[in-house]
């Protein structure tokens, strides 16, 4: 009888112990922070969204499994399909705010900026982007924060580097469109930079439609005016049209520079073969998706091997992982500062305004980030990386090229 009692006591004690242990583990990982992630599954970027979101998801999974576990915090992304549309984003946001009141938004692109720029300061929720910034959104006290300078800053950094490579001043042809304010902004910014620079001269500006019929004649005008390099940060169709024009004119010595969203692999594919982009460049403030970007590539490989990331090593995986690292580091620093229970949008923004996120902390995906109240992107210490096609293969041409200071335009 006594033996039975002892066994019962032992079983009860063991069960209580297990329950307590489970309870304490649950309590440690109990705090869940949910972020709103803007996505486009039914709009113009529907085809690439699974790649971008897939990269975001796996990077969050890694954080939960490592840093989050230690801190007793679990991050969750709630995805909202904005269709990359300003009106849709504007109509979704009040619901998201009342349902989640997230401490941060995973931003998507220009439409979010247009839809939420005015109201986020009142809602006290920062939107952390993955793209470069725009001159028209370069305003004080920002709540939409970009880990990259403006497209114009990135193009200007490239031009400075290119002039140095050439050993003298460079005449540039700017190709864009009036189809979007962002496209116009890219050109205005480079013009503003060229005005103050002794190394860069704008040979001419070519404004066309988003899907041009033929640009041979227009490109010839730029070439006649002495353009030695063409900057095209708009879309892939324009890169293809300009490349065809340069090929028709027999001017393969004039390189084009693209950005991340219309980069060399994508433009090469649209031309039929990436070898046709030999000697051309892409330049942006993120790691170049080449194994030569060692730290970033190793991190990507770890996500692939350990967390089953099923996205190729390309600009989309870079963008998705980079944006996530930027966001989780901001949250991590906020949690350390105020505790997991006190993480709010205001506190996340305060962290970004007061603390630096180093490039090492983001595995080299971005350069080190020190935001200030002067604008939506760090105005100092930013750099770009440059990719190229060399001997038919995608390669890194230069890394850590400093972004120049440009006055607001």
């Amino acid at each position, binding site marked *: 009888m006594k033996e039975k009692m002892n066994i019962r006591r032992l079983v009860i004690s063991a069960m209580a112990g297990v329950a307590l242990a489970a309870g304490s583990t649950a309590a440690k990982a109990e705090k869940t922070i949910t972020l709103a992630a803007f996505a486009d599954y039914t709009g*113009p*970027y*529907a*085809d*690439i969204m699974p790649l971008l979101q897939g990269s975001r998801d796996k990077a969050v999974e890694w954080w939960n499994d490592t840093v989050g576990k230690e801190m007793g915090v679990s991050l969750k992304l709630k995805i909202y399909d904005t269709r990359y549309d300003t009106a849709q984003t504007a109509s979704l946001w009040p619901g998201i705010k009342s349902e989640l009141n997230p401490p941060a938004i995973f931003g998507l692109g220009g439409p979010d900026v247009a839809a939420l720029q005015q109201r986020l300061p009142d809602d006290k929720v920062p939107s952390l982007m993955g793209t470069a910034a725009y001159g028209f959104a370069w305003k004080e006290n920002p709540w939409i924060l970009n880990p990259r300078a403006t497209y114009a800053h990135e193009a200007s950094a490239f031009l400075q580097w290119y002039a140095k490579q050439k050993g003298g001043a460079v005449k540039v042809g700017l190709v864009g*469109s*009036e189809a979007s304010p962002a496209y116009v902004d890219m050109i205005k910014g480079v013009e503003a930079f060229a005005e103050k620079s002794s190394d860069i001269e704008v040979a*001419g*500006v070519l*404004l*066309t*439609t*988003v*899907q*041009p*019929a*033929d640009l*041979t*004649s*227009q490109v*010839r*005008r730029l070439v006649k005016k002495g353009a030695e390099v063409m900057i095209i940060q708009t*879309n*892939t*169709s324009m890169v*293809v*049209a300009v490349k*065809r024009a340069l*090929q*028709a*004119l027999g001017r393969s010595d004039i390189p084009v520079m693209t950005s991340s969203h219309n980069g060399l692999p*994508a433009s090469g*594919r*649209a*031309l*039929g073969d990436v070898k046709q982009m030999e000697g051309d460049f892409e330049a942006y403030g993120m790691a170049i998706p080449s194994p030569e970007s060692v730290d970033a590539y190793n991190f990507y490989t770890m996500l692939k091997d350990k967390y089953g990331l099923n996205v190729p090593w390309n600009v989309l995986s870079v963008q998705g992982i980079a944006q996530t690292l930027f966001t989780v580091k901001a949250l991590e620093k906020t949690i350390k500062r105020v505790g997991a229970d006190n993480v709010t949008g205001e506190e996340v923004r305060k962290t970004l305004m007061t603390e630096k996120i180093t490039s090492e902390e983001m595995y080299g995906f971005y350069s080190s980030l020190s935001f200030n109240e002067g604008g939506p992107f760090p105005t100092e210490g930013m750099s770009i990386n440059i990719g190229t096609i060399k001997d038919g293969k995608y390669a890194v041409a230069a890394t850590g090229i400093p972004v120049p200071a440009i006055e607001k335009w």
Partner: protein
Amino acid sequence: MIGEFLDYAINGALIGLLYALVAMGFVVIYRASKVFNFAQGELVVVGGFIVWWLTLGMGLPWYFAIPLAFLLAAIVGYVIERLFFSKLVGESVFSMVMVTIGLLILIRGIVLVVFGAQVRPFPTIFPLKPIIIGDVLIPQSLLYGGILAVIIALALSWFFNQTRTGLKMTASAEDHQVALSMGISVRMSIAAAWVMGSVISTIGAIIFLSGKSLTFLASEIGFIALPVALLAGLESIGGLILAGIIMGVVQGLAEGYLDPIVGGSVGSILPFFIMVFILFVRPTGLFGWKTIERV
């Protein structure tokens, strides 16, 4: 100086002829049904994707793929008419026009779902090397496109004005009920117009996109061609050639001389300005039919 002027003007004229070719799709459908097809640009995209699918997707040689693409485009045009317009015979033109707006959204959605939004290479049908005469540079795709536009315009003018079938189609557009009472099959006329409009759009896609890239954004050419159709008058196929040349030359010269001064894209706005002006002073366009109503 003169060479530069000729370069702007000739290239402008050739681009204008491409717009005229796309605008022929508007006019053919309008001539047979009095319906203004807002989805014309989307038909260009569909034609482009059919050509891409057959050539680069299936790997067929272009001389085999292109006739097949015309056949498939004709089937697409026929199916569109059967599904959306055959039931509307005798209904108001307004209803039909509204259907074309719905069609625009539907086709865009289908293209995105089936082919995705990524930019694809379009086969090089015409040689890439331009013809250079002094200062004048002529892209071969635009040159052949211009010649083709003139030939097709002449053939369609003859068809609509001289053949029994063409005249029946025109009569159908005048009044469905009257045409039916005269034994004309309005459904067949409208179906034939959609088939022709769809095939013409595919020809336009080949010239527009040869050697370049293809996305759903190619549909923009439909709206760029709109001022050409309105300047010519929506019933005049022959008039499209002259209207296309006028619009193209104006655009080319504006791009060459005004854009650098203004620092903006005057060339792309000017055709629409002319369109609005024409609608004010001569709503029927330069060669459109004047309707006399007896009360």
